[in-house]
């Protein structure tokens, strides 16, 4: 187990390094931020001066080694846009997004898992069909559009919530609900599918034959075995959301989180800030994946590391 985690952490370092270098090379070889940062009528001398100030006139290998050296000290340099350390800006924006994503995921889990279990318990019924169809539709609708529809109905028409902003629970509900739609659909589908599979397995039939109640078969036997696929899907959704997929929805609701920051970063061509974001996303994704993998051992004791 220890050895496994150590190996995984090593791999995590490789992924983070790989992705960071990839983004660094893309931005520094193809990109030319000076043109967008200066007005059109800027002279060549002004461009050269800015290039020198940003350190973009040094050889690429020197820039890369300086960047990597900084990365090991968690120093990504100052944001060109805000003139403060880039990592600080990113860390400052994470809590708002975390709040949003956590609420969304709780809503998704609370709704999807019971419904998925019921559908698997009575396959082929009307409820099962309705659930399967709605979860597919939920996955197919673009989240930012769903958000706008919620705004139109719940905020503009009914006036229950604020259309945008950050701070109170009346700000939080609509964006969280919007973001919960896709994970809800994913989870309902995977719960329905894997529970049906487990309920047809030999051990479930045996449990029923020995007289276990439906409740016990569902929750003590089938759910624990279905949990590995459910956790895998949940982990993927969590990673996706934390990694900037919330951007469009955050923009819709004026939510000052990580997603909005990414959109601003791209607009302003702020390389240090982008590198800090990429680094953080890679760290988050790797640790979610690690946590998911370790949880397999708990749900399925046959899996050992």
């Amino acid at each position, binding site marked *: 187990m220890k050895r496994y985690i150590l190996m995984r952490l090593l791999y995590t370092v*490789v*992924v983070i390094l*790989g*992705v960071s270098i*990839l*983004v660094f090379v*893309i*931005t520094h070889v*193809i*990109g*030319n931020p000076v043109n967008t940062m200066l007005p059109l009528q800027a002279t060549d001398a002004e461009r050269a001066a800015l290039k020198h100030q940003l350190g973009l006139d040094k050889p690429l290998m020197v820039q890369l080694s300086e960047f990597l050296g900084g990365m090991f000290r968690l120093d990504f340099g100052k944001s060109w846009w805000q003139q403060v350390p880039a990592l600080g800006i990113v860390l400052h924006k994470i809590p708002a997004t975390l709040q949003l994503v956590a609420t969304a995921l709780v809503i998704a889990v609370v709704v999807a898992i019971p419904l998925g279990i019921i559908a698997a318990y009575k396959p082929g019924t009307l409820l099962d069909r309705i659930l399967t169809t709605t979860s*597919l*539709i939920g*996955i*197919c*609708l*673009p989240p*930012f*559009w*769903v958000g*706008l*529809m919620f*705004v*139109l109905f719940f905020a*503009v028409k009914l006036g229950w919530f604020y259309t945008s902003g950050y701070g109170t629970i009346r700000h939080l509900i609509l964006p969280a609900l919007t973001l919960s739609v896709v994970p809800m659909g994913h989870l309902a589908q995977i719960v329905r599918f894997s529970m049906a599979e487990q309920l047809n397995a030999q051990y479930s039939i045996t449990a029923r034959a020995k007289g276990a109640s439906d409740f016990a078969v569902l929750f003590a036997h089938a759910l624990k075995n279905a949990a590995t696929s459910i956790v895998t899907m949940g982990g993927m959704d969590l*990673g*996706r959301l934390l*990694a*900037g*997929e919330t*951007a*469009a929805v955050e*923009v*819709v609701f004026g939510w000052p989180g990580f997603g909005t920051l*990414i*959109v601003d970063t*791209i*607009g302003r*061509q702020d390389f240090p800030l*982008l590198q800090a*974001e*990429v680094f953080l*996303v*890679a760290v988050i*994704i*790797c640790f979610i*994946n690690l946590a998911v993998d370790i949880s397999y051992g708990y749900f399925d004791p046959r899996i050992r590391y």
Partner: protein
Amino acid sequence: MSQDIQTNAQIQIELREPEQNRNAFQRFLRRFSGNSLALIAFIVLMVIIAVSIFAPYIAPYDPAKSDIVHRLQPPSLAAPAKGGFPHILGTDQQGRDVLSRLIYGGRVSMSVAFAVVAVAGAIGTVIGLISGYFGGWVDLVFMRLVDIQSSFPGLLVALTFVMVLGPGQRNLTIALLIVGWMIHARMARSQVLTARESTMVESSRAIGCSMPRILFGHILPNVISPLITTYVLEMAHMIEAEANMSFLGYGIQPPASSWGLMIGEGRQYITNAWWLVVFPGLIIGITVLCLNLVGNWVREEFDPLQKGRH
């Protein structure tokens, strides 16, 4: 003995005959038997594609022609006072016909998604086939690359590319291409790994078939159906990705239009002109849903384990 074989063959031919008497269209429809939902999805999809292709002949108005007097008119079936075709889906903030913009926007959305899947699918499939067939260090290098990239969310990588290349349809296509090739490579590789060990491949190797012939003439046709499923489902993903990027302002640029961009542009008028946002989103949802239904149907229908159900 030879007599027996002949009769067997004759019986088989007789058994097959009813199927052959049907024309191709009937046989095609029969494939959908028991899954009318997939058939409906397929037809809807074909209509959307046809409308996108023949947009100039179908769209009632020029999508870029503004008519500031008749701006923000709600959907109506009545002919406008100035005459001409009714603005069935209303007009936008510049008086442009929403239906016509939807039709032309669909053209852009579909062509971006199609271009990405065609090129990424071809590149990914070839890399996956070669990687899976040869194994060794080729496989190791490609699959590590795929691992690293796919453990990282596509949106951020695509945005990075658009940031350095600049927005627009061509650069968006390139960005999505770079994000989208891996899934095809991974899929093709996993299929080849099993096909590689089959007797069929062993015998073609034994009679001296060349490597490209084995890969593309023997293995590819046998593993194509799961790959087609991936292509169809990736179309859906790419339509969503394009909409997402265009909505954020880093995809298609005005005056061109796409479904995602229409939502982004109509957003500020949402309180008094709901039709600017509702219809583009609905059509994205319908297209993606149909692609998913057709993709799932292809998976079930052409899965070798489920063959012979009909």
